[in-house]
């Protein structure tokens, strides 16, 4: 659906495989992935270099600054690597305000080196930006003024001349090698639909380019073109995004359907819950609750769109309602069943699934003192809203219904007033 970060292990795997295919450059890098499921004996059978070289081990979890955080161990033998991993697997770390356990490591040969080069390629709207520096490594940010940059417009093709300004100050004996390498990496970047790629650093081993650290981001909408080239590839969730069982249920529902079903719990004790149609509108409902000063009461972010089937909406709504009605504390709660004015989605049809779920959860809704606010427009909305109104009467749950005559987010204010009012 968009740009997705991939693990360092996969970035290097793709680079090695396709640099050879596209540029005839054979990288001497080796990497192995270690998770909870890894059997070290089996892994060593497959990757014999593990037992014959000194190793580096680090978490492969889409976050950087691992060296600065003391999460990288150098110059270990395999037993020490196993020991290092064992001590840290599943242990929570905090990175940039996100706390999550470490589940995946990358193990590679330890390569003593002096020179550290920096290379990054970023896909921009009108072309790609290539940045290179001979002063790479963990101090890159401090040395940002030494980074050289070229912009290659989309309509121009990559040539050695394009790279020339990047490498102009390199000693003659390495310039050609590194120029070709940059050109090759760019070809891989284009051919595999990368949207971002960074090596910080890469070095030269026996005069040949050797990436030590690498980050990559692919455009996963291009998956249909790249199935074969990408091979078995994982798109891990951003670091710190640990799905609760309910969230992962919706996540799996979302992956199975052509529609879009999103659900994130922000605060399980929140008293304002949302279930909103449309990618744009769902963000605005969450915004509005926050902008009105009640971010702390917002239970979740939820979006459904792309014409989900009635049964999918039912399963989805059940989960939202279960979370919204969990652990009643005697205080009032509000549920926003919101949406803009649809262009072509049949409102009555999508409401059928929600209505079925509300009916099923009648007693839970009452126990949680839930007040329901509905706002929606679009094809067949009159029928959909009438059904909702009838449901409120049928269940005896407080339920207010609004159409396009009302503002879209007016029900946010009503919900806030409701939960803040006494009794």
């Amino acid at each position, binding site marked *: 659906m968009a740009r997705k970060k991939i693990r360092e292990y996969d970035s290097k795997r793709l680079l090695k495989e396709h640099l050879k295919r596209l540029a005839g450059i054979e990288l001497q890098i080796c990497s192995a992935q270690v998770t909870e499921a890894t059997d070290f004996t089996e892994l060593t059978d497959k990757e014999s270099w593990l037992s014959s070289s000194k190793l580096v081990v680090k978490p492969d979890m889409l976050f950087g600054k691992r060296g600065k955080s003391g999460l990288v161990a150098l110059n270990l033998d395999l037993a020490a690597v196993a020991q290092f991993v064992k001590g840290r697997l599943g242990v929570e770390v905090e990175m940039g305000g996100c706390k999550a356990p470490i589940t995946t490591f990358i193990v590679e040969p330890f390569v003593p080196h002096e020179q550290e080069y920096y290379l990054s390629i970023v896909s921009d709207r009108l072309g790609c930006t290539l940045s290179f520096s001979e002063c790479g490594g963990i101090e890159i940010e401090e040395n940002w003024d030494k980074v050289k940059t070229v912009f290659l417009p*989309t309509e121009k093709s990559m040539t050695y001349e394009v790279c020339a300004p990047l490498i102009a100050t390199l000693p003659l004996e390495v310039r050609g090698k590194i120029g070709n390498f940059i050109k090759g990496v760019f070809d891989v970047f284009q051919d595999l639909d990368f949207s971002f790629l960074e090596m910080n650093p890469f070095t030269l081993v026996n005069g040949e380019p050797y990436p030590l650290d690498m980050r990559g981001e692919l455009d996963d909408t291009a998956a249909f073109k790249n199935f074969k080239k990408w091979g078995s590839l994982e798109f891990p969730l951003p*670091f710190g995004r640990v799905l609760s069982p309910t969230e992962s249920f919706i996540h799996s529902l979302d992956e199975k359907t052509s529609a879009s079903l999103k659900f994130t719990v922000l605060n399980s004790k929140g008293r304002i819950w949302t279930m909103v149609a*449309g990618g744009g*509108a769902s963000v605005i409902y969450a915004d509005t609750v*926050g902008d009105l000063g009640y971010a702390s009461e917002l239970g979740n972010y939820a979006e459904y769109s792309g014409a989900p089937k009635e049964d999918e909406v039912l399963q989805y709504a059940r989960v939202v309602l279960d979370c919204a009605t969990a652990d009643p504390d005697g205080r009032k709660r509000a549920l926003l069943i919101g949406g803009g004015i649809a262009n072509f989605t049949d409102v009555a049809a999508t409401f059928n699934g929600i209505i079925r779920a509300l009916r099923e959860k009648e007693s839970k809704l009452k126990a949680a003192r839930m007040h329901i606010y509905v706002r929606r427009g679009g094809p067949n909305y009159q029928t959909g809203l009438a059904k909702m109104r009838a449901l409120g009467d049928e269940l005896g749950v407080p339920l207010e219904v609004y159409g396009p005559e009302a503002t879209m987010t007016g029900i946010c204010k009503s919900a806030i007033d409701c939960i803040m009012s006494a009794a």
Partner: protein
Amino acid sequence: MATGQIFSRNTQALFYNYKQLPIQRMLDFDFLCGRETPSVAGIINPGSEGFQKLFFGQEEIAIPVHSSIEAACSAHPTADVFINFASFRSAAASSMAALKQPTIRVVAIIAEGVPESDTKLLIAYARTNNKVVLGPATVGGIQAGAFKIGDTAGTIDNIIHCKLYRPGSVGFVSKSGGMSNELYNTIARVTDGIYEGIAIGGDVFPGSTLSDHVIRFNNIPQVKMIVVLGELGGRDEYSLVEALKEVKIHKPVVAWVSGTCARLFKSEVQFGHAGAKSGGELESAQAKNQALLEAGAVVPTSYEAFETAIKETFEKLVEEGKITPVSEVEPPEIPEDLSFAIKSGKVRAPTHIISTISDDRGDEPCYAGVPMSTIIERGFSVGDVISLLWFKRSLPRYCTQFIEICIMLCADHGPCVSGAHNTIVTARAGKDLVSSLVSGLLTIGPRFGGAIDDAARYFKDAHDRGLTPYEFVEGMKKQGIRVPGIGHRIKSRDNRDKRVQLLQQYAHNHFPSVKYMDYAVQVENYTLSKANNLVLNVDGAIGSLFLDLLSGSGMFTKQEIDEIVEIGYLNGLFVLARSIGLIGHTFDQKRLKQPLYRHPWEDVLYTK
């Protein structure tokens, strides 16, 4: 990107990948606006040509369908908008092909999920060639009272409600297509309405940007104020900030960037739109709103206050005398679609076809009410399926097995009989399977294979009237009718047809009663006394035994049995059975690569 107007009341589009509803909605909008020409000039549907019938008001019009973009463009040189409803897999290639046509100026891409690298090629091409790309992942856009793309602005009711059938003074641009419709409504509520509205789509790299359209709106004299709905992620809003700072925009801009809630998420978050991703601080909604505010845009404190901000800005323009009052027009009424009127219970219409044997509307097809899963799980046979589809009931196993025996016995009878011969000749003439098959089937009739029904009819009539075989046979003779089901070219009293014997044996073992067959045998005994080859043949055996099946099973009323015989069900058995053989003969000839058959002269008597 081009500046100023991109649509007018005369704009015509080519529509790629036929979709009935969005095209009809465009044409309904045209009618509402009082356009004289439909806004869709032609449809491109790869691989098909002809016309599509659609409504333009009360009238039906035929819109030409072309199989290629090039053909459509040369047939409709004045159509300069290309509306691309291709899937995300093929949208980029077809959009590029359209951009390369000299007649096309604007390409709108509806599909969501077009790879970024493909969109970038479209952007580069459009920039160099001064063309406009809307989308991908957009619903499109609308110029009020003039032209609308696809599903933009939803239903006719909504278009009327939002007064989109006539131009107002507000230029609007957003990322989200869903929210654009919401804002058309909001803007209609607090201003004189939309002049033009564009949804650029939620991708990271939209074909044209928010600021592209804002700058364009600035150049359109009828647009008096501009409303922008941005979104977190990306930096597009900053080019708008730059344009405002450089005073390139002389009209009031009311802007809101959604996504302030991103800070409530602990980790990086990807919202519904591909471009709506929390990134650095600069890409946050808060930072963009702040920058827009500082650059001089009217920025509310929340989305909830957006409407008031738009209202106040508009009222100020009115006070300053900058708004020319809009002349209100009464849009014509659009006739309601029959399907919709039926659904809402307003009208009823007679059906033109009735079917009682099968129904494919549910989760699985049903034969005579029996779902396919039951048929498979219970191990139904072909005979059971025939009994469901022909007789609309489940017959006992002995009956369905009898049906299968009939089919097996009649499946083929060698290459020399007229049906097989015709099939062989046709197959050898290089014709396809269906032609070869029907050429054989067409020989089935009174002289070949079609005697089962007649045999059943005459035996039943004679038996039920209590005629003796003598009275029956002689009565037929008087009328000059040969007794159907009796007589064989080769078989005789001493060389009985093995197939007849097998049928009789099966019936004796399984049927509760064989009174019709007994009668047929009595008739045979009488006819054999007249000539040695007047044996009961396979048609006569099946015909009489089927009468026993129908009456003996107790599952058919007398009236039903008469109807079955009358309609000619039993010849159906032969047609079905022999199709098996005829298909076999076709394959046989093709496999053997037999050349065209020509009958030898020597075998023809040429005479006068």
